[in-house]
């Protein structure tokens, strides 16, 4: 029932989400830490920029990304490469920006919830700031990391507007699930659209349900 073309779509979508999530955790963690701890006056400006994709129409974000990624754009010239538009790498970059708030905000909130006390305790016990970060801050913020990773992954899976603008619909390269559903509907292949949509529905429910379970368990363990 699920034909090879569909598996390719699903595989590509999962790969995109996985790459994006890893990249987001690597980039988002220091950003979240900085946002949680700094007293810089421009802190909330950065915070607002990070949160912007929540309210910005995906097509607007996609449009600017398309302009920036075109082969002739100044950015591409500076990077000295081919334009990232209509490529898998381009999709990863776009997804990272698009899903940034869904990863950074939960982690930032988790860092803020720790407060300064455990960090001070660690310092008085001879732990350097980096040591404290990995042995105290990250474990205590683990529910935030989990929430962030799950949200980032799921949000990337469901992404449509940005992908449409910068990815097009190249099979095996940029044709992800949401685009495929759209194509199937356009070409009146309703049964296939049904199949993928129902799959997404179940997937989304499981993601949210799992997240709530995990948060409940971790939250109970770390309560003081």
């Amino acid at each position: 029932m699920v034909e090879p073309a569909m598996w390719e779509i699903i595989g590509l979508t999962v790969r995109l989400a996985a790459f994006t999530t890893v990249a987001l955790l690597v980039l988002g963690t220091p950003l979240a830490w900085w946002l949680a701890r700094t007293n810089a006056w421009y802190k909330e400006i950065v915070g607002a920029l990070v949160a912007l994709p929540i309210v910005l129409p995906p097509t607007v974000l996609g449009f600017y990304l398309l302009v920036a990624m075109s082969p002739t754009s100044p950015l591409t010239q500076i990077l000295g490469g081919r334009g990232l538009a209509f490529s898998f790498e381009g999709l990863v970059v776009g997804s990272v920006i698009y899903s940034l708030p869904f990863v950074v905000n939960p982690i930032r909130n988790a860092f803020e919830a720790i407060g300064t006390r455990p960090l001070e305790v660690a310092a008085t016990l001879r732990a350097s700031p980096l040591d404290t970060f990995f042995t105290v801050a990250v474990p205590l913020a683990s529910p935030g990391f989990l929430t962030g990773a799950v949200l980032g992954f799921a949000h990337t899976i469901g992404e449509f507007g940005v992908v449409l603008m910068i990815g097009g619909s190249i099979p095996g390269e940029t044709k992800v699930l949401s685009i495929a559903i759209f194509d199937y509907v356009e070409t009146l292949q309703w049964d296939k659209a049904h199949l993928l949509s129902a799959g997404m529905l179940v997937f989304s429910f499981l993601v949210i349900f799992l997240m709530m379970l995990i948060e409940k368990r971790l939250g109970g363990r770390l309560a003081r």
Partner: protein
Amino acid sequence: MITARFAAALGSFRLDAGFEIPGSGVTALFGPSGCGKTTVLRCMAGLARLADGYLAINGEVWQDGRTFTPPHRRPIGYVFQEASLFPHMSVRDNLLYGFKRAKADRPAVAFDDVVDLLGIGRLFDRPPMLLSGGERQRVAIGRALLSQPRLLLMDEPLSALDRFSKDDILPYLERLHGALSIPVVYVSHDITEVERLADTLVLMKDGKVQAAGPLQDVLADPALPLARMPQAATVFAARVETVDAAYGLTEVTVPGGRLLVPGDLGARGTTRRVRVLASDVSLGRQAPVDTTILNALPAVILAGEATTDHQMTVFLALGADGQGARLLARISRKSWDTLGFAPGDAVVARVKGMALTDQASPAPAPA
């Protein structure tokens, strides 16, 4: 020797506190809430940094001008008001956190000793969440000690506990005092804790140091408010001389006199701490005859001051020559006037009751 000075304007509050205290024993930073004592302690730990600060511990400068050793490079232990155990670690891992990181130094504080001293061995595998308040604070104290501190800082470690847990922990703190040579700076607003634990007292008010010195001297200083408190008391280091088993009394020497204290206080030469409330001391011109009060000590009046309209606080020095320890007496103004007391007079101080500070309740007076 510990030399500290911290100054800053913190909003409308002006902190300007400087003191010099011995590099051993327990020093209490004592004062009302909001007097800046916790800020001073945080500065000593390096958790707060005031631009205008100086701190040297036994010759090692931790802060001076642009010199500032960050907290994780200071060999300190810090006990916070709340135990603040790491909730994601077991009791054992909490204890080992600082111990492992201090490995570079020679472990002067052995793991098993601390565990025994604080009685926390049976808590090892429990998550901190399942401990009582008193147990948590004991683990926190152990955790701080195991980081091999050369200075132990304690910020009102008992104030978040109920009466029961406090009584549970105080004996452990006293044992620490006896067992370890680490200097301790102890912030408190509870004078009974201070009388029990401290050797040196730094009295703070409104961000300033009012007085700093040996506990006995500061408690009985006429220039300071402590002697005017309703519960004013003096504290002596008492050395055990002889135990009279037949009468159940121990004779101890205090600077400038001898006292009989009920009970067996231990071997000859043991030092115990005796606390005498000002209201338990009465004065006479002559040695008492026909009285059940056993303790009558020659003393010299240093000063007398009206504490209320009808009550006097008398500052005394023990010994016929007035060279001994300070003692406070709370008497009526009528007695003061009737007997015609004046500074310089030789008197006999009758001590109706006294308490060993390491006993939960005051011992009845030997009468």
